[in-house]
């Protein structure tokens, strides 16, 4: 029983490896690029699934956290500090190894914060923002919480769209690679796409491991009890405010980490990442996967994001997401991966085979 929860993890790893081998042998390595992006979007999806499906707190602003992470690293790693080189703090940062120097394609020297520092700052900023907005808005429930998070997402979107430092509608491009101890480089370079692919999925696997353990722990039980009945949870000694804030900040930070690496991978970020439609899409994917089913959400996240990123859904992208959401809600509101669905499919197949025999 205890180890059973890890089995799907092996399935995921096997799929990751097989897909890479398949694409390399068939000479279609370009397929890995979209799957790498899927991995980073999956961070938002599994984080949101934990928040929504298990703890029962809806968020229509999770794209904003992804964007906060992405933009933090984008700004910090592209802001040229050369003019302020002699500033006390800048030279202090430099001597501490917080900065790195590179030459951009135009031959200009750029002194900027290293991606490591950017990652830490992104996590801290996201944590602080989610903590501060979480305290008041997590007092709300259901539709009201959805509205409040929607409002938050819209604010972040408009700030990113209007802020000079965020590149306004163009976003920020020319973001340097994330070099991990010279072993791994998170960048969009075609030559590095296999290692990028594995790096991305490594992060997802680690996150899944963390979340699975969380869900099955004492804390996870408390979160699920909040989903079921906050009043009862409180009466048996669970502090609802504390646990809601914990899961909200955790899921925000996880989304932001996805955003940070995604930004280094694609080398650019635009305000569209924070858009309301993105947030709605994340919620839709979690719903399709079956709210309280982290594996369902991950699988649907991979499939739907992959189709969308490969362009199979064409310009009707958002419309198709809408249709899928409506169909799922009508026919199997507990998600595609509800145990009963598999049972009936299996029964159907077995009855066809064995009745004839």
């Amino acid at each position, binding site marked *: 029983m205890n180890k059973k929860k890890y089995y799907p993890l092996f399935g995921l790893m096997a799929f990751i490896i097989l897909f890479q081998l398949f694409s390399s042998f068939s000479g279609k390595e370009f397929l890995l690029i979209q799957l790498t992006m899927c991995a980073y979007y999956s961070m938002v999806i599994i984080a949101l699934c934990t928040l929504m499906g298990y703890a029962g707190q809806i968020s229509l602003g999770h794209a904003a956290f992804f964007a906060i992470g992405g933009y933090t690293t984008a700004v910090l790693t592209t802001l040229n500090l050369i003019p302020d080189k002699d500033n006390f703090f800048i030279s202090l940062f430099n001597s501490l190894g917080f900065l790195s120097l590179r030459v951009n394609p135009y031959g200009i020297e750029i002194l900027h914060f290293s991606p490591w520092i950017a990652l830490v700052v992104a996590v801290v900023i996201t944590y602080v923002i989610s903590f501060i907005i979480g305290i008041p808005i997590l007092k709300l429930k259901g539709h009201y919480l959805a509205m409040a998070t929607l409002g938050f997402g819209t604010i972040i979107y408009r700030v990113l769209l209007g802020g000079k430092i965020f590149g306004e509608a163009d976003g920020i491009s020319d973001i340097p690679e994330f070099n991990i101890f010279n072993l791994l480089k998170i960048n969009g370079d075609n030559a590095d796409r296999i290692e990028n692919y594995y790096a991305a999925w490594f992060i997802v696997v680690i996150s899944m491991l963390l979340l699975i353990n969380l869900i099955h722990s*004492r804390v996870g*039980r*408390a979160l*699920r*009890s909040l*989903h*079921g*009945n906050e*009043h*009862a*949870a*409180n*009466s*048996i*000694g*669970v*502090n609802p405010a504390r646990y809601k804030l914990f899961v909200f900040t955790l899921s925000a930070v996880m989304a932001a980490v996805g955003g940070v690496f995604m930004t280094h991978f694609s080398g650019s970020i635009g305000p569209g990442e924070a858009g309301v439609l993105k947030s709605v899409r994340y919620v839709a994917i979690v719903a399709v996967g079956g709210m*309280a089913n982290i594996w369902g959400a991950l699988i649907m996240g991979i499939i739907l994001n992959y189709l969308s990123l490969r362009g199979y859904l064409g310009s009707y992208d958002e419309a198709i997401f809408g249709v899928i959401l409506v169909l799922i809600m009508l026919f199997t509101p507990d998600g595609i991966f509800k145990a009963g669905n598999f049972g009936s499919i299996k029964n159907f197949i077995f009855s066809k085979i064995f009745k004839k025999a």
Partner: protein
Amino acid sequence: MLSVKSLESGYGKLRVLKGISMQIDPGEIVTIIGANGAGKTTLLNTISGIIKATSGEIEFNRTKISNFPAEKIVKLGCSLVPEGRQIFNTLTVKENLLIGSHTIKNSQIVKSELNNIYNLFPVLKDRINQLGGTLSGGEQQMLAIGRSLMSKPKLIMLDEPSTGLAPLIIKNIFEIIIKLKEQGNTILLVEQNAKAALRIADRGYVIETGQIVLEDKADALLRNDEVQNAYLGKEYKK
């Protein structure tokens, strides 16, 4: 064990409890009877910290708990079985019980407590992996009681455990309450089913529109004319 002094509380501007004083000694079953809307549930919710008292004092084992958050009160050993059972429908029976021991971090104690519950309610043991929402009303009530016992309480407060149950099941639940008392627990029982509650209780309080109007030994209350008329349906019999 528990003493309440001129307690006032309510919802927003609505004052529900208007100066309640009562006390419970260790090992007793004390019952609070009263009509709908008299403030019985509000009293229990205020004691357990879910609603904040606006004035007055609550002392539990000589600790003032009037301003404590709910989880701290549970930790001190004062546990509520809420009205309408409030089972976690999407959690299994075992998980429902385990969440009851949320305030206990020692897994050894949790394990032994879980076994105690299974001994007390063999029905639950047969259904450990079933979802809470799929249990019958009586089983859910047992689960709710079991869940609150998981926090190793010194005082168990039961809010209308007989609501919506068949007479036979109610008898069963009341037998369990007596058993809990025999095991040395102290019980505060709030009931609309006044006759049944007074039969198993040591003492009783009668609450009317937020005030205690009568307090006595349970058998004395059972014989009291006023109580008989108002709550035990004597008039009706005539």
